[in-house]
């Protein structure tokens, strides 16, 4: 099987415009291309649909308003009124991940969120940002976050390290969740696509039917993972702001 037909070939980075900035590789790759396409799509979607600014929204305007209110309610329910300041960031994060996931559903496109480094960078920004907000707000008291209240001292010896580990694992779990979902879905689609060709006209219909069902599931996963990424960011932000345990 040639490398070109491997189920993982779709995840390969191709340098479309090789560039170098003081020894740093800043080439414009296929991943870069779809990041740009994603942010242009998000911007066009949210501005063109709101152009008419009608009292009674049409379909597109409804969708734009719905995404706005979806994220706004997510922050209101999970963080509270203090989270309003962080709405632009969470909204950007949600829309970016959602559009990268959805663009990846179009055949022959590149799925940016199937790159572990991209999802990890996003998760790391959330983790570092949230930790910085917590320390800026509570100072030294932020460390009490790792000490569960109402627990005997002996148990604290075990629980505090667990809390600390679980806190630092957050960016990894957050990034791997999105990455693994995208990777698995797209690989599976490609593998079953290969089966369609391999089994031919008689038995090829079975994997084809499976691909149809899987495509529907993948659209759900695209939405769900963007939602999960955004809501977990909200929960982490809530922890940093309120330190409750």
């Amino acid at each position, binding site marked *: 099987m040639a490398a070109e037909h491997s189920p993982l070939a779709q995840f390969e*980075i191709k340098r479309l415009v090789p560039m170098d900035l003081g020894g740093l590789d800043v080439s414009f790759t296929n*991943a870069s291309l779809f990041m740009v396409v994603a942010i242009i799509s998000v*911007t066009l979607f949210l501005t063109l649909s709101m152009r008419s600014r009608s*009292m009674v929204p049409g379909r597109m305007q409804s969708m734009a308003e719905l995404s706005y209110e979806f994220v706004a309610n997510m922050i209101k329910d999970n963080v509270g009124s203090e989270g309003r300041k962080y709405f632009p960031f969470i909204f*950007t994060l949600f829309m970016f991940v959602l559009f990268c996931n959805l663009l990846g559903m179009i055949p022959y496109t590149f799925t940016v969120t199937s790159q572990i480094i991209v999802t990890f960078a996003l998760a790391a920004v959330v983790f570092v940002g949230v930790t910085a907000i917590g320390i800026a707000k509570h100072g030294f008291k932020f460390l009490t976050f790792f000490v569960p209240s109402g627990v005997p001292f002996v148990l604290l010896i075990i629980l505090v390290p667990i809390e600390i580990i679980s806190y630092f694992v957050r960016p990894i779990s957050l990034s791997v969740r999105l990455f693994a979902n995208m990777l698995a879905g797209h690989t599976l689609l490609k593998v079953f696509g290969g089966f369609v060709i391999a089994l031919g006209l008689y038995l090829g219909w079975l994997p084809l039917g499976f691909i149809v069902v899987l495509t529907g599931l993948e659209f759900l996963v695209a939405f769900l993972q963007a939602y999960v990424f955004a809501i977990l960011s909200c929960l982490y932000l809530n922890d940093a702001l309120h330190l409750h345990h």
Partner: protein
Amino acid sequence: MPQLNIADFPPQLVWLAITFVILYFLMAKLAIPGISEVLEGRQNRISSDLEEARRLSEDADKAKADYEAALAEARAKAHGIVSELKASVAKEQDASKAELDAKLSKKAKAAEAGINKAKETALSHVREIAAEAAKSTVARLVTLEVSDKDVETAVAASIKGDA
């Protein structure tokens, strides 16, 4: 796995940073204000419309109360007029009845007087006729001239005896 090729990390991180920051500013400065303005405008419109509807409904309630009050007043007035009219009609009727009664009793009295007079006249005539008859009868039976005075005395005595 192609995702773990470390040589591919720098261009992705650089372009992720560029695109994400651009998107953040586009959202914060362009898209979010646009949407929130429309949503706020709609919210204001809805609340002002609700306010207007509430005001109109209050006006309608007030108009209904006014109408009912006017209706009750008119009804009371009409009732008053009717009872007044009834009273005045009854009074008038009483007056004309009393007048009629007086007239009738006067007439009855006059008629009674007439009857008494006629009776008296008749009674006096009865005497005369009786005297005449007695005189002529006596004259036929006894060819004897009886003086009017004697006859009259006799008749009066007989009537007195009868009475």
